[in-house]
């Protein structure tokens, strides 16, 4: 079945194409569009499940190596590149005797191949190295891409089903699902691609679909601005990513993962302070990840992206697109682990982002914004994990986060739908009894995100914090742990706040009716750009545009259903009471809630060895075992093998290497392994170990600490928002600067606006002024000079030249005109006289000699 993974991206694409191209033209019904979309994704999911099962669980010969579809023929020669000069990192290569490898490869080419691909001569200091760059379009099935395939299609399926209910009644129904299908295609290409360029294609594709979907309500200024902001911020990251890809091609001569990583693992590690080519590549990759996964400082787009419909927020900005950065970092963990500086950078930025977003999330009033900042914060956690070397755990957290965050977003969507597109939590409250399904599923998500055992969030978050404390790959691990713990506390606090304000307590919406006239007017005015966006004002939400007085909320075809869910028809005064969502919306919630509850059990860590019996129970089902082959071990300088190496012949010899030299990320488990990263300073786990003298006790200490802080956060949240509602205001007054900073998102947007946007516009204005005044001035000046010159020449011609000609003509005229006019008497007899005179002259001339003689004779006789 794994041979058919090429269908997995194709099916959503076909569904999107049908919906997008034919959906409006042939006026598909909502059922048809939804059916096509959901059906395509469901099929893709089933094929993914079957493929992953056949790959990893049924003794497949490729396990745990990557399976490329090119091995079975599905490979499209996308960019036939030819010879590429590989001249980066030549010093490192020399150290590794890479020349020998290249020479071996050259020797293995047939004479025809060698004749075809002549190396180009380059002026380099080193002798030119060349490689054959051939970029193909083929899909790769390996543990990492398998995990992401399942997450994307599985969670995506739930969200698609939810969206069919949520987007009911929209005129752009077909467009929504077309874009969503396109997004699925792009995301799957991203995670299933076999080389960096396919990843880049998917990268850009999901960025594009994010733009299209955030701006789904394109007639609203807020949405249009947000979509542009998302795309442009993404693009900044993409620039770094592109440079990194160039570096990869220039260093390794190929873009295929297998090729690159096989070469990269032999490179020397660049320790802290030594910055080499792999550090540059890692930097570029991480910049891309920052843009895509909304890390500091490129996080600004994610909160604004909540202007899109809620399913979009769930799918793209919680579960899948924002995790693409994590996918990329984990995929290239070989390169990252070669650069200790970059690992530190990743960890620190992840840590900073986590606490930063958590602080902001505490004060937000829009339910979706809270979840957005929560997403940013959790992404920070994931990068923290990656930075300390626990790549497996970061992917595990991606998975659990996808479950509970998608669940909570969909739950929020259900709340918004039930509240008739009200998003401000200050107008919610007590929804527990109106929307039971939504409430209980959200409850599960809440417990998961707070990190309560045995919900999924606990397993992953605890492992992250443990790995941060015990890491031997980077220094300052203790700082990362500390800040992460504080961020976890904040997470628990604001999530409890959300629960309290939304589901518990009294129903505030009865006092402040949702969808009031003033609010609608404000929203309309804001859309038109008249009213400024006032953070303190009631939020406009993601509802479509309405004129004041118009019916707010989706059109309900089933009036009976509407009445039924209200429960009581009487007492219905103008304001609509919230109601539970239809089944198409709460069934996916239930599915996701189940996953959020039990999904973490695949990641039970070694701390529970005493309970489960093995370090990583579950065989291939355990996430650590599953993802181990894709993580590179800097000690062994090879990729890990699954800890339960029970199948595969290749696994056996590798297991020998594995046993004596475990990965440094698990270096804290019993043995202190000397890593190639040298002394990384104070190690918190080791310190605790020195106190407890028992490793398992150390781990349990940390588990208890994280449970404790989660509990503290939850209690504080309950205290502030259930027990004594005046406490928030008191503490806001006391911590006024911090409160203001948090409420205003640390003024990051304003700073960017001042520092970048306005400066760029000033520069543009300056360039425009230069162009219009100087360049155009020069051109116009030349034109004026030409005109002046032509004036001068014209004057010369008119007065001087023509003057001469006219003078001569006048002179001739004055001379000849009277004479000639005198001859033209019009009098025929004058003409006859002239003829006769002429005749006489002719005759006289004829007889000239005779006449002369006669005259002489006469005169002689006369004398």
């Amino acid at each position, binding site marked *: 079945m794994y041979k058919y993974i090429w269908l997995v991206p194709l099916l959503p694409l076909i569904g999107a194409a049908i919906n997008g191209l034919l959906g409006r033209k042939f006026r598909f019904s909502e059922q048809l569009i939804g059916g096509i979309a959901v059906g395509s994704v469901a099929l893709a999911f089933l094929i993914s499940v079957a493929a992953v099962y056949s790959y990893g669980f049924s003794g497949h010969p490729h396990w745990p190596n990557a399976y490329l579809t090119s091995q079975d023929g599905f490979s499209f020669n996308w960019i036939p590149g030819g010879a590429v000069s590989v001249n980066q990192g030549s010093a490192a290569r020399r150290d590794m005797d890479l020349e020998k490898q290249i020479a071996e490869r050259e020797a293995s080419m047939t004479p025809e191949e060698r004749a075809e691909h002549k190396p180009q001569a380059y002026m380099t200091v080193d002798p030119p190295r060349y490689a054959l760059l051939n970029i193909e379009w083929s899909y790769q099935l390996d543990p990492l891409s398998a995990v992401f395939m399942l997450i994307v299609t599985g969670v995506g399926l739930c969200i698609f089903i939810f969206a069919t209910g949520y987007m009911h009644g929209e005129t752009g129904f077909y467009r929504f699902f077309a874009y969503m299908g396109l997004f699925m295609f792009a995301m799957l290409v991203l995670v299933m691609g076999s080389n960096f360029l396919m990843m880049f294609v998917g990268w850009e594709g999901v960025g594009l679909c994010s733009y299209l979907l955030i701006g789904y309500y394109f007639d609203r200024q807020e949405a249009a601005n947000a979509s542009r902001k998302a795309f442009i911020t993404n693009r900044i990251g993409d620039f770094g990513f592109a440079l990194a890809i160039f570096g990869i091609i220039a260093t390794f001569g190929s873009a295929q993962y297998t090729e690159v990583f096989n070469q990269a693992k032999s490179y020397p590690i660049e320790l802290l302070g030594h910055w080499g080519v792999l550090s540059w590549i890692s930097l570029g990759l991480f910049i891309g990840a920052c843009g895509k996964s909304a890390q500091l400082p490129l996080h600004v787009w994610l909160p604004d992206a909540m202007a899109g419909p809620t399913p979009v927020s769930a799918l793209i900005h919680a579960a899948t697109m924002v995790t693409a950065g994590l996918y990329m970092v984990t995929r290239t963990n070989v390169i990252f682990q070669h650069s200790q500086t970059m690992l530190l950078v990743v960890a620190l930025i992840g840590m900073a982002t986590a606490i930063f977003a958590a602080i902001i999330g505490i004060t937000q009033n829009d339910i979706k914004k809270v979840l957005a900042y929560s997403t940013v914060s959790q992404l920070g956690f994931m990068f923290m994990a990656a930075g300390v070397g626990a790549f497996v755990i970061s992917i595990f957290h991606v998975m659990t986060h996808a479950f509970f965050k998608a669940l909570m977003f969909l739950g929020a969507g259900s709340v918004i739908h039930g509240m008739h597109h009200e998003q401000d939590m200050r107008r919610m409250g007590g929804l527990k009894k109106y929307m039971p399904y939504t409430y209980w599923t959200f409850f599960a998500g809440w417990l998961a995100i707070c990190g309560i055992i045995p919900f999924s969030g606990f397993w992953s978050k605890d492992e992250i914090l443990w790995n941060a404390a015990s890491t031997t790959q980077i220094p300052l691990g203790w700082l990362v742990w500390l800040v992460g713990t504080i961020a976890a506390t904040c997470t628990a606090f604001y999530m409890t706040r959300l629960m309290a304000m939304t589901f518990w307590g009294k129903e505030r919406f009865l006092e402040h009716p949702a969808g009031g006239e003033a609010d609608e007017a404000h929203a309309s005015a804001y859309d038109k750009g008249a009213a400024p966006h006032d953070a303190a004002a009631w939020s406009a939400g993601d509802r479509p545009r309405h004129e004041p007085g118009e019916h707010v909320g989706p059109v309900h075809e089933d009036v009976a259903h509407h009445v039924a869910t209200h429960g009581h028809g009487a007492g219905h005064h103008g304001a609509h009471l919230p109601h539970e969502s239809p089944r198409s919306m709460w069934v996916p919630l239930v599915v996701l809630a189940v996953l959020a509850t039990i999904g973490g059990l695949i990641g039970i860590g070694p701390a529970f060895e005493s309970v489960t019996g093995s370090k990583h129970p579950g065989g291939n089902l355990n996430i650590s075992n599953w993802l181990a082959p894709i993580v590179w071990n800097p000690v062994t300088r090879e990729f890990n093998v699954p800890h339960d190496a029970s199948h595969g012949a290749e696994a056996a010899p590798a297991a020998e290497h594995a046993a004596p030299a475990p990965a440094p990320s698990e270096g804290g488990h019993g043995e202190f392994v000397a890593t190639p990263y040298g002394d990384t300073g104070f190690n918190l786990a080791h310190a605790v170990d020195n106190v407890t003298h028992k490793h398992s006790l150390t781990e349990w200490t940390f588990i208890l600490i994280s449970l404790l802080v989660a509990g503290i956060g939850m209690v504080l949240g309950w205290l502030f928002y259930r027990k004594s509602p005046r406490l928030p205001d008191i503490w806001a007054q006391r911590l006024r600067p911090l409160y203001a900073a948090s409420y205003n998102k640390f003024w990051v947007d304003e700073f960017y606006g001042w520092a970048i946007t306005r400066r760029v516009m000033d520069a543009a204005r300056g360039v425009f002024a230069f162009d219009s005044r100087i360049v155009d001035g020069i051109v116009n000046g030349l034109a004026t000079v030409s005109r002046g010159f032509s004036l001068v020449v014209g004057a010369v011609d008119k007065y001087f030249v023509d003057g001469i000609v006219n003078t001569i003509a006048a002179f001739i005229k004055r001379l000849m005109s009277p004479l000639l006019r005198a001859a033209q008497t019009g*009098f025929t*007899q*004058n003409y006859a*006289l002239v003829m*006769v*005179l002429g005749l*006489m002259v002719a005759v006289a001339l004829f007889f000239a000699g005779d006449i002369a003689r*006669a005259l002489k004779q006469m005169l002689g006789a006369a004398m």
Partner: protein
Amino acid sequence: MTLSGYEALFFWIFALAAIFAGLLTVMARNAVHSALFLISSLVSVAALFVLSGAEFIAGVQILVYVGGVMVLFLFVIMLVNVGAEEKGSEEIFNNQRQVTASLIFCLLLVGGVLYAVSQGFPALQAKNKTDPLAAAAEQVARDRSLAKGATGTSRITADTEHIGNNLYRYASLPFEIASVLLLVAIIGSVMLARTLRQEVSADDVDPETLQEEIALDPELAKLEPRSE
């Protein structure tokens, strides 16, 4: 061709008559007088032709020139000139300059001709071997041998016969050309002398000019163009 006796006398009479008539032609105030004087001049010259032995030409001159051309002149004078003399004191000679110039020219030409004749003729005579008087006597004798006419007063000469022989034998091409010339002259004169009405009736006016003329004289439009 020396004439003698009565021939000489008649020569002088007719010669002086011709000159006098010619002079008066040019100087007459009335155009009809001019025409009549021209007729008398032509008749005198015809007589000189007879004295030169060119009887046919004399006859042709009288018939064609006088009888045809001068009658034509008289008709034209009638058409054109009738009212011209009523005024009486019209000048007949054009301006002084013209008259003076022509007189000077004429005097010069007279002097030149007389000189040339008087100088050249003896030279011409000298080329002839024959004695003019003897040749004239021979000519008289030859004339006597001709047959007499019906009334007995004149002889029938062979001049016409000679002309006929030469005209149709050696000058037949010029003869034909002359006939074509006359044909052209007939057509041309008919065409030239047409009135506007005649031209419109014959459909010989081009449309633009026709419109202009109709604008001036509306009756033209009524004229039916004669078409085949």
